[in-house]
C-alpha cells in the first residue's frame, strides 16, 4: 500500500525480477486497504504480508497498522513498514503497534533486490 503510483511501478520491477509480481496487490491509500481487507470473507484468503508506506493522506500507514492489529480477524497478518526515511520515533511507534519490521525504501538496485526477496519469502 503506497499513495505513490510510481513507487508501485518501481517495486513491481523488483517483484518481476524475483518472480512474485502476480501475487502482489497494490493499493493507493489506507481507506482502500482497510476496505480491501474487509471484503475478504474467507480468513484463509487474507494476505500473507502487508507492506505499508507511512506518509499518506487521510489515513496514515501507522493508523492502518493500528487498525489491523486491533481487529482480531486481521491481527495475525504480518505487517512491514516501508518508509522513505529512517525516523527513530516513527520506527519505535510502529514496532510498538505490532509491526514486524521497519524498512527504508531502497536507493540502490541491490538493496531493492534484497528487499523484494525478503517480501517473497512470505508468499511461500
Amino acid at each position, binding site marked *: 500500500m503506497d499513495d505513490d503510483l*510510481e513507487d508501485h511501478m518501481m517495486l513491481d*520491477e523488483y517483484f518481476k525480477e524475483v518472480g512474485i509480481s502476480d501475487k502482489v496487490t497494490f493499493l493507493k491509500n489506507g481507506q482502500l486497504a482497510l476496505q480491501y481487507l474487509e471484503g475478504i470473507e474467507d480468513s484463509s484468503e487474507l494476505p500473507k504480508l502487508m507492506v505499508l508506506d507511512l506518509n499518506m493522506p487521510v489515513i496514515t500507514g501507522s493508523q492502518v497498522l493500528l487498525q489491523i492489529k486491533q481487529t482480531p480477524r486481521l491481527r495475525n497478518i504480518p505487517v512491514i513498514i516501508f518508509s*522513505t*526515511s529512517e*525516523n527513530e520515533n516513527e520506527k519505535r511507534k510502529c514496532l510498538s503497534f505490532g509491526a514486524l519490521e521497519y524498512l527504508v525504501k531502497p*536507493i*540502490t538496485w541491490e538493496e531493492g533486490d534484497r528487499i523484494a526477496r525478503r517480501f517473497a519469502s512470505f508468499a511461500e
Partner: protein
Amino acid sequence: MVNLDNEMDLILAHKRAMKLCELTGFSLLTQTSVATAISEIARCAIEFGKSSTLTLGIDSIANRKFLVAVIGDKTDFSQRCFEACSYARRLVSDVDIKRTSRETQIVLRQQLSFSGTLTEAKVDSFADYFKNEPPISAYDELRRKNLMLQDLAEKLRASEEDYRMLTDTLPVMMFSVDIRGQIYYTNKWLQDYFGAAPKETSAAAWQPYIFQPDYHLFSKELTGSILHQVPLTGQYRFKEKSSGEYRWHVFSIIPLKNEKEKISQWIGFLVDINGQKQIEQALKDNRELKEIQDQLYQNQEELQKKVIELNRSNYELEQFAHLASHDLQEPLRKLFFYSDVLKKRYGLLLDTTGMNMLNNMTAAANRMKELISDLLSYSQLQKQNLRFEHVELNDILRDVVKDLDLTIKEKNAVIEIDNLPKVTGNVLRLRQLFNNLISNSLKYCKNGVPPHISIVSRPGTDQNTIIVRDNGIGFDDQYSEKIFGLFERLHTRDKFPGTGIGLSICKKIAELHNGRITAHSVVNEYAAFEVTLPELEKA
C-alpha cells in the same frame, strides 16, 4: 521719697513739701512753715548724715489726719541738729525722734485742716502727681535720664544674654556678618560643628569646611548673593569636625536693612537636613529601583516573547529541515532507481560518453544524498533528544580511531592521544564531534606528508579544553569563525569534496554540551581545534 545727697536734693525736698501742703489744702503760711521745718531737718541730714532719705506721706491717728515727713539716715544725725529740731517744733504740730539699730528718723507731723474726706484714692492721686511731676530742674532731668539709661543698659545686657542663650541652645548654626563681610558673631552650635569658624562670608573662607564637589555651586551662589545683596538659600554639605563627616545643610544668609533701607548687617543660618536628605535619596533610589524593576519586567516580557518566537522558528526550521530532507529523498531515490535500471537493462546500448554521463548523474545524486543526510542529522541535534552521562573521552577517541582505521592506514597517519579527562556528555554526539574533527584532519592533509594528529587536554578552572591539532594545509586564520557556519566551504569540491555541514555539527554539539569550539591555524603548517567542555558534573 527723695534722696538727700546734696543741695539740689534739698531744693527738691522743699519743693515737694510745699506742693504736698498745697495739695492737702494748707494755707500759704502753713505751707511755708511746714516746708521750712522739713527743709531745716533735711539740710541737717545732708550735712551730717550719710545717704539720707525724705519720705512724705499722709497718716491718720485716732480720726485725725496728719501730713507726715520722715527724714531718715543710717547714722544718728539727730545729735547734731537739736537747734534745727527746736526750730521745727515751733513750725509744725509735732517733731519726734526715733532711733532703731538700722536707722535714726526725725518725724514731723502737721495736722490736716482738710475739709471733706481724704480717701485712699485721693492719697494715690497725690502720689501719682509726684510720679508724673514735670522735671523741676536740669539736674533732676539729668538724674532721671541717667537712671533710665542705667536701667536700659541693664535690660540690654539681660536681653543680650537671653539672645546668646537662645542662639546657643537652638539646634541651628547662626552667624552675623557686618557690612564689610566680617563674621562678628557665631553661636556655640556653629563653633562646635566646625571646630572653628570662618572669619568672613567670602566663598574662599568657607572652602575648608565645605564638601569639595559642592564648592563650585556654593561659591557661585554666595558670590552672586553678596554682589546683588539678595538673600541666599542653598543646600550644601559641610564637614563636621568631630566626625569628619560631610552632612547636608540648608545654608541661608539674609541681608538686614535699617530704617533708611540700607543694609546694616547680614545674618546667616545653617540647618542640618542630612536625615531628610537621606530619606529623600532613599525615596529617589526606591523610585529609580521601581523604574528599573518595571523596565526589567518589560525586558523580561519582551525576552519571553522573543524566546517563544525563537522557539517557534527553531521548531519550524527543524520541521522544515526534516520534511525537506525527507521529501528530497523521495525524488532522489527514484533517480537512483532509474539510473540503476538504465545501467542494468540498457547499459549495452550506450557508448562510453553516454555511460560517463550516466555515472556523473549518479555521482551528483550521491552528493545530493550526502547533503541531505548531513542536513537531516544537523536538524536532529536537539538538547531534549540527548541523554547526558559521565563519559571517558579516551573511550570515545578510541572508538573514533577504530571507525576511521581504514583511512588512517591508507594515509599512513599517526594519531597521538593524551590522557583525556572524564566529562558529562552524550556518547554518540561526542563521538560524532571528534569523528568529524579527525576526519577533517585526515582529509585536509598535505600532499605527500603523512598526517600527524595529536589530541591533548588542557584542564581549566571549571572546564576542560581538548585540542585536536594536525600538520595539514590549515586555513587563513581570518576564516576561523566562518568555517563553523552552515554550508561554509573554503575549498572547491574537486579538491576536497564535502557539504560544509561537518563543522557546523561540531559547533552545535559543543553548544549542546554547554561548551564551545574555536579554531586557529597557520596556512600550510597546522590547524588546531579547541573544544571546551564544562567540568564533570558531580551527579
